């Protein structure tokens, strides 16, 4: 168990290294010069050259990489060209909205999808099962921004139930905080509901044909106990896996959702940084995301231990 943990944590090092190199190189290969953007449209060539010199962009690529990587090893993600502050501070400032949005999204998705999936598996071929499967096809195919603007139009503009856009820090009161989060979370969770419900349905359906389900019924247990206590508990591993993948994919999803709802989170930061060719910020955010991704995978693997006593690392 301990050796598994050590091995897994050691394994994250090469993954992050490869990500660091790739991010650095890819950014340098894409067209667009940060110095020109910072200098503005009317800047003179000398001015641009000066900015470029200041940012260290005139040095050879390998040297640039060496400096950045050296700082990285020392725990320094560098300083943003555009926001003029440390990238780590920037990430710290923007993380709360993203965490709040991701958390709400995944909670909504799990709370809705798992029961739906279980019921669909139980009443396989029934109207609810078919409705759910229809819904999940839709959930997969409607783009996030379409659904987002549709919900804003309906709930905020027509019904005036919730704020249109923006974000309130949790420190400024829980009521406004949650009111601002509901629509974005619902928007974002639709695709995960579709995904998790489908996987839950398939996993529970498999388990329902097992002998121990017959044993549970032969004990005289009511169906709810059979479904939740016996079927769902045994279907946990594939469901957890897909929830883990879902959380990881969310990172991509928040970029669009934060833009639609004007939430100042990491997604928005990424978009702004890309538009400004703000290399240190982009590199920092992507590295951070990769780290979170690896961490979530590790947590999912560890959670198997809790749900399936047969698994030993």
């Amino acid at each position: 168990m301990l050796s598994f943990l050590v091995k897994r944590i050691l394994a994250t090092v090469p993954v992050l290294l490869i990500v660091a190199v790739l991010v650095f190189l890819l950014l340098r290969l894409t067209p667009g010069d940060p110095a020109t953007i910072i200098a503005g449209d009317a800047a003179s060539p000398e001015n641009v050259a000066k900015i470029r010199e200041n940012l260290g962009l005139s040095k050879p690529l390998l040297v640039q990489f060496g400096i950045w990587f050296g700082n990285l090893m020392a725990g320094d993600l560098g300083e943003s060209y555009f926001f003029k502050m440390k990238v780590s501070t920037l990430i710290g400032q923007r993380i709360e909205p993203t965490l709040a949005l991701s958390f709400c999204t995944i909670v909504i998705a799990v709370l809705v999808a798992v029961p739906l999936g279980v019921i669909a598996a139980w009443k396989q071929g029934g109207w609810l099962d078919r409705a759910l499967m229809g819904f999940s096809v839709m959930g997969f195919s409607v783009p996030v921004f379409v659904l987002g603007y549709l919900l804003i139009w309906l709930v905020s503009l027509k019904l005036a139930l919730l704020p249109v856009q923006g974000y309130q820090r949790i420190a400024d009161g829980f009521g406004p905080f949650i009111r601002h989060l509901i629509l974005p979370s619902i928007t974002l969770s639709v695709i995960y509901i579709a995904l998790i419900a489908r996987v839950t349905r398939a996993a529970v359906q498999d388990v329902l044909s097992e002998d121990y389900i017959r044993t549970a019924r032969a004990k005289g247990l009511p169906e709810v106990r059979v479904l939740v206590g016996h079927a769902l508990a045994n279907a946990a591993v594939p469901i957890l896996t897909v929830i883990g993948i879902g959380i990881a994919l969310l990172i991509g999803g928040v970029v669009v959702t934060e833009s639609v709802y004007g939430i100042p989170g990491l997604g928005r930061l990424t978009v702004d940084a890309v538009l400004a060719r703000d290399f240190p910020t982009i590199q920092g955010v992507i590295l951070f995301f990769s780290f979170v991704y690896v961490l979530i995978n590790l947590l999912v693997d560890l959670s198997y231990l809790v749900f399936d006593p047969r698994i030993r690392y």
Partner: protein
Amino acid sequence: MGAVLEIRNLAIALPRGGDRAQAVAGVDLTVERGEIVCLVGESGSGKSVIAHAVMGLSPKELKAVAGEILLEGEDILRASPERLRELRCVRMSMIFQEPMTALNPVMRCGDQIDEVLAMHTALGAAERRERVRRVIEEVHLPDPERMMASYPHQLSGGQRQRIMIAMALIMNPVLLIADEPTTALDVTTQAQILKLIRELQQNHGTGVLFITHDFGVVAEIADRVAVLRLGTLVEMRAKADLLARPQHEYTRMLIGSVPGIEPKRQGGGETAPLVLKAAGLSKVYRSGGFLSARRAVHAAEDVSFEIRRGQTLGIVGESGSGKSTVARCIARLIDPSAGSVSLGSDEIATVSARALRPLRRRVQIVFQDPYRSLNPRRTVGEAIIEGPLNYGMGRAQALARARSLMETVRLDPDALDRYPHQFSGGQRQRICIARALALEPELLIADEAVSALDVSVQAQVLRLFDEIRERMNLAMLFITHDLRVAAQVCDHVAVMSRGRVVEYGATREVFGAPRHEYTRALFAAAPGRGYTFGSPS
């Protein structure tokens, strides 16, 4: 009247497209208090259908269309789902064939038993715990506290079946339905479980409906026997009477098909040329390594034997004894860790993969499960000729050989272009034999090749094996867990336990006077040894 279960004129419909209109029809059956009634039949006879109907666990497609099932006078067929739930595990309980899969793998055994009490009683947690502990003691499991805290995968098959029995009997039901509860267990474990069921049933006066296909088990445990054939009861009488004087022709055929435990073959042929010689054969599985402790499992250790042309050697042992490992090493499906296997004058244990190819033809295997050892998407003809084609035979010639082999295994040669699902289990096993023979092997390995078959079919396939060996002058390696089967076909037997051969000799000698303690335990556990089955008729 002490009848706990009374089935009257029961008929259950089969869904459209079944092999008959009704799964069971016109079945009358009673189980008295404190009595064990064995319901015997081959696969597809409808015995499990009846058992599930009594518990109200039948799938929707299998609807009772006539008759009644009275549990202490109350009609199960007309009971509401809620009422059925109240009765289950309280008045009637069921234990199943596969203890390996019948328990929830992610729930502690103690909790699984506790669930029954929590559902059906108003006892507090401490009282329930005490009751669970007592029932675990009652089924003679050691260390109840540890058993309660264990997950099913930490227990052996026999222990799991004891947990199932504890769970079924904790509420002291009047009726226990046992659906082939020992079929998946080794003989020594089977003997213990049968004894346990007998003991508990007598202590509590439980009525038992015991479903089995095995007349050995019937002889051990039944008070009365009901014989079911294609959904109808053909005969129902007291055990001794039925076994000694079966009235119905079908019952006589079934009892006659049970292989006797007296060795049939004389041995001999000691001067025939040696086909296979295994010496010091071992297989070790290693796991672990980097950062975790190394473990080595000795699946087979220092196994030596020889087989001459025209002879059959049986390897007998319980599950985990290493008998299949040996078979796989001989066929080089897995690589032995040490020792030598010589086929005629060629060594096959160590040769390279390339040099092995021409040798493969000379050793062929027939596996246990005929339902899974044929590719469902290939016609049986394709399956049979694949081997010869691989070794360069022309298609026309291979097909001609396949036709003649179909006749050898008593199947219609015109059936070559059919698919496996169109054949029964016994027929499929014949096809597997034909496929093995198509390469004209010198050694034929049968790995539990008749274990999955009904007795009547088993008897036919055993006869076929014997015939083929004689006609083709083959050497045969016959792997089995069943002493009766070994007695029918083997000239020599090697008894294996925990990877080692503990006794090896002529079948007559080993069966007549077993020397090793383990062999004696195996014989003592063989069900129904007091009865002579398969008497020549």
